[in-house]
């Protein structure tokens, strides 16, 4: 019964998002442009060699298709701003008194937007990649495993973004966190380049941080699947989800205590 109401929230948000589907298309075209830039950049770098750090040109571009589609649509880009706005404007109160959990509501809402955004971006970016570098060798059997990993990636980002967004209760404005968090995923998360390109010491550190479990690990699994990697990545992702999930719940409970109601 409880699950059912969140399913309804998901459905309403899906219908709402579909009303603004052109927005998703514009973002996706933007990702298509980025992939086109990367194709040109990496073609240049692959002009003297066929393999760089274990990646062929095709693998590299498809790696970037997945990281870009993933990161551009995650909560870090919208959720931090949205929560910040709700807290600052007081709109939060309209959501708090509804018969559902505030955090779960945003999880379902963000999940819906991410699913739609990711799918559209992946299709458009994938078509650009397919046209310029060709298809990736990919077994359909691995698809369910990749989807599980992507769902966990989304969830790790959601918990971190929600923590940063909810901190608006104590900070004046949290939107500046958004830019910094985004860039950390871009670089240390391996969105722009695989961690193999990094100096050894930075690669080791970055590979263990939660940000790489949002972009690098899922994308590498996508282009070089192994069941053993899948298990390790999922285990690490699960640990991070639990860790950040606990912080989020504690922070949320503390934040709600700070809510003051004014008439009017």
């Amino acid at each position, binding site marked *: 019964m409880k699950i059912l109401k969140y399913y309804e929230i998901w459905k309403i948000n899906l219908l709402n998002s579909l009303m603004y589907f052109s927005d998703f298309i514009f973002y996706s075209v933007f990702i298509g*442009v980025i992939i086109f830039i990367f194709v040109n950049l990496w073609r*240049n770098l692959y002009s003297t060699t066929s393999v760089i750090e274990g990646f062929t040109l095709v693998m590299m571009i498809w790696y970037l298709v997945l990281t870009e589609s993933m990161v551009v649509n995650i909560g870090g880009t919208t959720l931090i701003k949205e929560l910040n706005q709700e807290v600052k404007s007081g709109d939060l109160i309209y959501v708090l008194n509804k018969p559902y959990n505030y955090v779960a509501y945003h999880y379902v809402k963000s999940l819906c937007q991410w699913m739609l955004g990711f799918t559209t971006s992946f299709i458009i970016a994938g078509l650009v990649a397919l046209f310029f570098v060709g298809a990736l060798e990919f077994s359909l059997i691995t698809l369910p495993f990749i989807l599980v990993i992507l769902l966990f990636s989304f969830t790790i980002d959601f918990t971190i973004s929600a923590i940063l967004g909810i901190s608006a209760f104590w900070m004046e404005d949290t939107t500046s966190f958004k830019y910094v968090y985004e*860039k950390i995923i*871009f670089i240390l998360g391996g969105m722009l380049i695989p961690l193999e*390109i990094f100096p050894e010491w*930075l690669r080791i550190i970055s590979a263990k941080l939660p940000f790489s479990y949002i972009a690098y690990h899922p994308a590498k699994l996508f282009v070089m699947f192994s069941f053993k990697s899948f298990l390790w990545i999922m285990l690490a992702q699960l640990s991070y989800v639990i860790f950040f999930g606990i912080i989020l719940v504690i922070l949320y409970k503390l934040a709600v205590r700070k809510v003051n109601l004014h008439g009017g």
Partner: protein
Amino acid sequence: MGGSLLNFMWVYFKINMQSAMEYRVNFLLQTIAMLFNDGLWIVFWLIFFNRFKTVSSWQFSDILVLEVIVAVSWSLLGIFFGNFMELANVIKDGKLDFYLTLPKEVLSHILTSNMRYHAFGDLLFGIIITIFFIPLIKWPLLLLFILIASTILLSIAVILGSITLYTGSSAELTRAGMFGALTIASYPFDVYSGMVKFILLTVIPVGFITGVPVRLLQSFDLKLFLFMILITVILAIIALIIFKLGIRKYESGNLINARV
């Protein structure tokens, strides 16, 4: 006319700065965050060039020039023409009537009446990189290229935003187009060749934001420089024409707004 516009921009700048100073901590936080954000791009390119050394003829020092042009030109727009990304929303939300009823020139009034506070972080970043990493001899030309890049970006923003006057909405198109232009300008231009390079230097002239300036700072070419000026002027004129013609088609929705 020009002097009057500069004076007008200065007055708005002072008003916007007073608003920013009302929330000093937030202003400072946003500036620092943007400075850090830009710094992370340098970290990215350091990692990249540590592994690959060169991309065509581009080296890490060229990327520093690129980053300065992108950050400072974008920040100048954010500080002096803070509504450059909001033109479509201003028109769509019926706020154009406010500007139309006032004696000041409409486009410049819309553009100058807002300020993006985090732009100061970009500006500070550009100044720091220029002082520490770019030779003094290149500064005059660099400043000129920054102004040209700002003009090109502003012209593209006006063209994309003005499409709302014809179609009803182009807010997302403006966002996608501007970030697309900025992203193309944020990578070494030498990776493009053939038809793509031709398009980026003519039809969609984003190659003049950073690509040509870096090339001119490597070795100056008068013909290329004059071509860049010509394209910039043409683009600015096209932007003005599209906006002015669009304004003639505009019909007010009679929405009453309180402008606070």
